[in-house]
């Protein structure tokens, strides 16, 4: 049971990060009906920029308190990512808004490769140890441990999601975003500057990605120039799970995917232990005798879950949990 609680806590933590990144996918999708392929790379850049700032500030026995340094890292990462989000929109999406759908996808893939390899040049090809500067007290809940970082990640995500919801549903600009998502042409006729709204959406998505990037860095203690790829894929799966284009869906999808992944990783080893399968037990008895376990799939298959969820959703409920019908334009 404590394994269960522990994995739920871990799942909630990674799930909150997925949710933040998934919000980026879903918002951009909402306004231009295209997937921002390079979004994962924005997360990576956020983590990298924060890494540099934090390392620089924390290195020289600095007088600044750790929390301030961490905040400075976030504060640097956000504008950097916003700039990249804007650049993405201008270079990869805006010029191709009326081209066939394949075209912006391909430019975005190109941008994602460029960003990745620029990051490689700037920050080296080796994994970088993200400085662990803040105290990380461990609390115990029902036999499981939850760290201060985990609590902070979950709380901060909730706050950011609430802010975003307020922004989209309660402000003038939010109305403009929703109008554009509903119908670009009509929104333009009503005086909404669609170009501005679309650019702003990319920028907001990038800001969320920056925060997510710092969270990933602090949580796993490591950053790498390829980290955005897997994270982006998973967050996209989360957005699809929740129903792409739907804000609440992205949040729900992110949390659910985090839970599925954590619980999956926690139990897959036990479930695929062939020494416990009634039929297989005899067949593999010889190998069970050695150490009592014959695990078919260990937690190294963790990354597969997100894709299985993605494929399952697409097959059985393409519109996602909370989404409306997805049009099937080819």
């Amino acid at each position, binding site marked *: 049971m404590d394994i269960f609680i522990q994995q739920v806590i871990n799942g909630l933590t990674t799930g909150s990060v997925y949710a933040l990144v998934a919000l980026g996918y879903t918002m951009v999708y909402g306004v231009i009906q*295209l997937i921002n392929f390079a979004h994962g790379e924005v997360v990576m850049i956020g983590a990298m920029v924060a890494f540099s700032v934090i390392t620089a500030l924390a290195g020289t026995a600095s007088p600044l308190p750790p929390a301030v340094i961490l905040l400075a890292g976030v504060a640097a990462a956000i504008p950097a990512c916003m700039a990249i989000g804007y650049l993405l929109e201008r270079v*990869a999406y805006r010029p191709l808004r009326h081209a*066939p759908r394949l075209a912006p996808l391909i*430019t975005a*893939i190109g941008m994602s490769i460029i960003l*990745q390899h620029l990051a490689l040049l700037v920050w080296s090809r080796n994994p970088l140890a993200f400085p662990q500067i803040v105290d990380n007290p461990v609390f115990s809940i029902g036999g499981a441990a939850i760290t201060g970082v985990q609590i902070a990640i979950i709380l901060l995500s909730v706050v950011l999601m609430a802010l975003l919801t307020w922004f989209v549903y309660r402000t003038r600009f939010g109305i403009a975003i929703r109008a554009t998502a509903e119908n670009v042409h009509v929104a333009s006729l009503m005086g909404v500057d669609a170009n501005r709204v679309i650019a702003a959406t990319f920028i907001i998505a990038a800001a969320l990605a920056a925060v997510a990037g710092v969270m990933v860095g602090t949580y796993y203690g490591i950053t790498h120039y390829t980290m955005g790829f897997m994270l982006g894929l998973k967050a996209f799966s989360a957005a699809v799970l929740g129903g792409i284009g739907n804000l609440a869906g992205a949040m729900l999808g992110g949390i659910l995917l985090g839970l599925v992944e954590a619980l999956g990783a926690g139990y897959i080893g036990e479930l695929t232990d062939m020494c416990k399968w009634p039929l297989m037990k005899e067949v593999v008895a010889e190998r069970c005798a050695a150490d009592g376990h014959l695990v*078919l799939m*260990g937690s190294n298959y963790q990354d597969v879950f997100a894709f299985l969820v993605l*494929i399952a959703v*697409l097959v059985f409920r393409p519109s996602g949990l909370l989404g409306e019908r997805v049009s099937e334009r080819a």
Partner: protein
Amino acid sequence: MNLRDKQPALYWCGVALVAIALIALPLVLTLVGTAWVRITNLAILFIFLALGLNIVVGFAGLLDLGYIAFYAVGAYVYALLASPHFGLHLPFWIILPIGAFFACVAGALLGAPTLRLRGDYLAIVTLGFGEIVRILVNNLSSPFNITNGPKGITRIDPFRIGELEFYNSDTWMGILFTGPAKYYYILLLILMAVIVINLRLQQSRIGRAWVAIREDEIAAKSCGINTRNVKLLAFAMGASFGGIAGGMFSAIQGFVSPESFILHESIMVLSMVVLGGMGNVWGVIAGALLLSFVPELLRYTVEPAQQALFGRMLIDPEVLRMLIFGAALVLTMRFRPAGLWPESRHRQEFSGEHRS
């Protein structure tokens, strides 16, 4: 094609010249260095891959970002059936079709649940599929050792036809044929067949159905095209080409490991198709050749150039290669969206007015 009708003598002279050039190529390259023959062989393998992906992306308009997975399937099927790993040593003409078959099944497996999806969804699902295959190959070493994990499989059998061995050098009529040169000829032979198949496919009923689906799926459907089967067929055929190429890769390298089948390779093949001109067989071949040789040239020029200019290596040629690929994708889509050598229909599609 017009030339053939107008001046047949000139046309056939040209064909003969090209044929002679292609036959003499490895002998000339051997003089420069056997490495260049190997590079040429790899370039031909990439042509196979690019042509296979072209069926999916260029003909049928389905963006597949996990194409290298089929290459991996073909390569591992060959490696498992012709290496000391399982002690099996089947001849290559039996394994290559088996590899193609498995890749084809993998293609259909991927295609079946994803066919209803729109372009961008499909792209991400195929991306995920490619990763799943790589993760499987990486991890299927315990508890039962199937793929030998990240260490890969070594000592894979080379091609062998009767007494003719493909890994060593032979001298016929006073001319030295190195191992790679011999592979070159067999690759060239298969390449010819693959090109003919592709050109015929494009003109065929199926090829036209693919184009119809690419341009307007709903219209194609209402014209009586069974879009589901035709799209599945595109996936399966594209995958089979990848499988065959993978098998040959295994044999030529003598070693496979999961590292050869990362996302970058998928992107590289996609860049070849996009840069060359989606849907145009000759364009794709040109794209594949271009993107195969440019990195090699970079390898030989960038390093000395940087050493001379800055006294040290600033940008690894490998990184520069990927940067160039990324830029090539962006710039091609921006300024020549139908590729450097576009197919005529695609050109219309990319330049005309569009449904949004």
